[in-house]
């Protein structure tokens, strides 16, 4: 996928976040979101390894070895930030105190099942906080390309990869469109750029309803 496509997904995701929300960002496309938040976005970023109030990447010479994010990359802490241990961090997540989790996925089903931690036969031996986040966050936004690198649609009738959680996704944002899960059913609500409904159908391995929102009126 081109960096442009990733940036388009991240930019659209940034618009989903509301002032004051507590947001946990996964690795990959979600990590592009902070750079695309507009003035006055005023969201608070939570990282599972024990920090609320994640700031920008540090400049050269400003790296603190005790200050990283969940991707184990150096970050800064904003004024008003708070540190806590891992049990507290996941109590925040599991207990419904984190408003939004943004994360990537390998597959999402039409009922919102998410598969994002393991591919059979591949050397992935890590789940990290993914299962806790998709179960605990009040709103789960999946950011991913419409197709895998092998060209397979990633929105599917039933996930074939190992599940992270059932019925967990609320919003799915790809480079082509935005889907929302409404009453347990997948609905196409927005086309990105010049995309047509037919193009989304061609890139999606499952049926879906169409109820396009006029975002200009929003």
């Amino acid at each position: 996928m081109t960096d442009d496509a990733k940036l388009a997904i991240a930019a659209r995701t940034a618009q989903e976040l509301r002032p004051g929300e507590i947001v946990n960002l996964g690795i990959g496309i979600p990590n592009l979101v902070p750079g695309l938040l507009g003035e006055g976005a005023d969201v608070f970023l939570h990282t599972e390894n024990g920090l609320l109030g994640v700031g920008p990447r540090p400049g050269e010479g400003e790296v603190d070895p005790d200050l990283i994010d969940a991707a184990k990359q150096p970050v800064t802490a904003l004024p008003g930030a708070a540190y806590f241990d891992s049990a507290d961090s996941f109590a925040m997540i599991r207990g419904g105190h984190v408003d939004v989790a943004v994360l990537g996925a390998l597959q999402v089903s039409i009922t919102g099942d998410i598969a994002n931690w393991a591919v059979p036969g591949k050397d992935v031996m890590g789940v990290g906080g993914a299962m806790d986040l998709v179960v605990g966050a009040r709103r789960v936004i999946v950011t991913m390309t419409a197709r895998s690198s092998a060209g397979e649609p990633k929105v599917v009738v039933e996930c074939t990869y190992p599940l992270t959680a059932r019925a967990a996704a609320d919003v799915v944002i790809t480079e082509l469109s935005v889907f929302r899960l409404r009453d347990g059913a997948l609905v196409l609500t927005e086309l990105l750029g010049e995309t047509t409904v037919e193009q989304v159908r061609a890139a999606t391995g499952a049926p879906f309803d169409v109820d396009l929102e006029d975002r200009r009126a929003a």
Partner: protein
Amino acid sequence: MAIASDGPIDPEQAVSAIRSGDTVMVGGFGLVGAPLTLIDALVETSDAEDLTIVSNNIGEPGRGLGKLLRQGRIKRGISSYFTSNPEAVAAVNAGEIDATLVPQGTFAEAIRAAGAGIAGFLTPVGAGTLLAEGKEEHIVDGVPHVLERPLHADVALVYAARGDRLGNLWYRRTARNFNPLMATAARVTIAEVGELVPAGDLDAESIHTPHLYVDELVLSR
């Protein structure tokens, strides 16, 4: 208990508490907050083997617990994320170590539960997934939950930026992570501190781990 007034001991002496077959908790998220001096002493001076390691990651290649892995002394790993160390993933795939993968929040809570005398807890996390296989499932208010058991250890190795001579600990920034939990969950807790201060120098309202959890103190090298 509290540390005896004789203060810190050598890391080599401290890790001699670890016996073959023991379960050892090791703090840190990756290498941040990992007790690297204690790990080095375990690697260089202990001959304990067949160890079960409870740590969020198994170090990185040749760094932290990655050194112990290369020595073939880890029999089993209980972690949320082995992928940080490709050599650990290779060892699992080659059947050289057993891997138990646990969702990170469940991992943290199971350690907390062990330290708090809780025999188990019900969490919706992982229900209906591969990671719940073999675990009891209970439906609570219509929602499937997994019964998770506590994670105990024989020895915990933790790192704190500051400690006092009694064993009170203060952690710095995101180097806190699993350390305060693990300090509560083992039969013997060995704390490596970056800086040792007299009792009374740590702000009593800012102590993260009160000294009753800590059995031995070691200074970082």
